[in-house]
């Protein structure tokens, strides 16, 4: 069996379907419909079992000490410092390091200026070919929608030859990437199937010129298929 066939067979038997229970609902009492679905869905039964392991389990005696150490270590690493963010970013505030970095940057800037002086002004550049990075306006879907969207649409961005599209989980785990020449893109059915009711999905678009340079970005936009459909 080829890798492609194996993957497709697995998707069909144990992958998520449009009827699957969204992760956000796992902590809630199942509805009658969800209970019926659970009885026959290997994916949802496994996700529920994992959620229950996460939510309810008690540490065994042997991993109890390790868990306590990890929790304490996590707290130590993330503890906010006075007027700082999490400690993982705290080095930005250390005066000695900051001074050192500033000196290094200054030396690099001076060296670069000497090595590569300011370029001459070019005699002429076609104004139409100069673009500033701007905002790509996303049209649909946004907010709560009644059915899983099959198409993503945005406004034409002046100067764009193509658009890169990213579809992501709310934690920015990538779900799908695509590219289009028009300000719209059809989503493959396997991706549409992931848009289960209640699940929030993020998408964003980057406009590119003919040379492939990014000339506009939309920023993230979210949509969700209404749970009550």
């Amino acid at each position, binding site marked *: *069996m080829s890798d492609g*066939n*194996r993957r497709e*067979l*697995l998707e*069909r*038997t*144990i*992958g998520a*379907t449009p009827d699957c229970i969204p*992760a*956000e*609902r*796992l*902590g809630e009492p199942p509805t009658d419909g969800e209970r019926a679905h659970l*009885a*026959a*869905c*290997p*994916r949802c*039964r*496994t996700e529920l*079992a*994992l*959620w229950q*392991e*996460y*939510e309810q*389990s008690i*540490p*065994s005696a042997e*991993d109890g000490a*390790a*868990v*306590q*150490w*990890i*929790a304490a*270590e*996590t*707290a130590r*690493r*993330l*503890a*906010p410092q*006075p*007027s700082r*963010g*999490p400690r*993982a970013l705290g080095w930005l505030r250390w005066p000695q390091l900051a001074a050192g970095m500033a000196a290094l940057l200054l030396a690099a800037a001076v060296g670069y200026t000497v090595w590569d002086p300011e370029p001459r002004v070019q005699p002429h550049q076609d104004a139409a070919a100069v673009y500033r990075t701007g905002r790509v306006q996303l049209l649909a879907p946004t907010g709560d929608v009644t059915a899983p969207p099959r198409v993503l649409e945005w406004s034409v961005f002046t100067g764009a030859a193509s658009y890169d599209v990213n579809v992501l*989980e*709310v*934690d*920015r*785990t990538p779900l799908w990437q695509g590219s289009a020449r028009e300000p719209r893109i059809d989503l493959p059915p396997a991706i549409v199937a992931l848009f289960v009711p*209640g699940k*929030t999905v*993020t998408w964003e678009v980057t406009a590119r010129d003919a040379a492939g340079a990014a000339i506009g970005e939309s920023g993230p936009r*979210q949509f*969700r298929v209404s749970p009550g459909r």
Partner: protein
Amino acid sequence: MQLGALSDEDLLVEWRQRNGLERDAVVNELFSRHYERVARWCMRLTGDRDRAADLAQEVFLKAHRYLDSFRGTSRFSTWLYTIVRNESMTKVRRAGPPMDPDDALAELATLDPGPHELAERELKGTRLREFLAATLDPLELNVFVLHYGDELPLDAITRLLRLENASGAKAYIVSAKRKLAKAAEDLRTRGEAL
């Protein structure tokens, strides 16, 4: 105000309204309630204290970065779990192929409609899922989905599901394959198809 008396969701309301140190204190209270649970999950998945601490740190940094996107449509603990799950599965996903992949899927493949029956595909997919759910017991099903679907190594599954038998998750895969083969054979003997 006693932060400890507030629910997770109320803490998030406070977090949106505060600035600076007060804001740090709120998020510290919120996250500290979940350190142990996340630590336990990370330890089970990685089997190593230091790797688990790194994973837990990444989970909370990611949660901190995207806290503003939490819309309150679910409990905070469920929202955090989706980050824990996605982050940890990505990190721990096995590098090599699953245990006997073709062997395990061969019986399912014989029941599959094949690429020429596109119109029936969705229905057949449903029946395949029902066949799997009805044939395997709950633990076999979970191990099968995690190993072949989520590509988790067997030792991680053994720890995650706290399997205490000698060979852990491997025994459940062997048992699942045997049951699937027998159930498929029974279907064929009866002249039935999915």
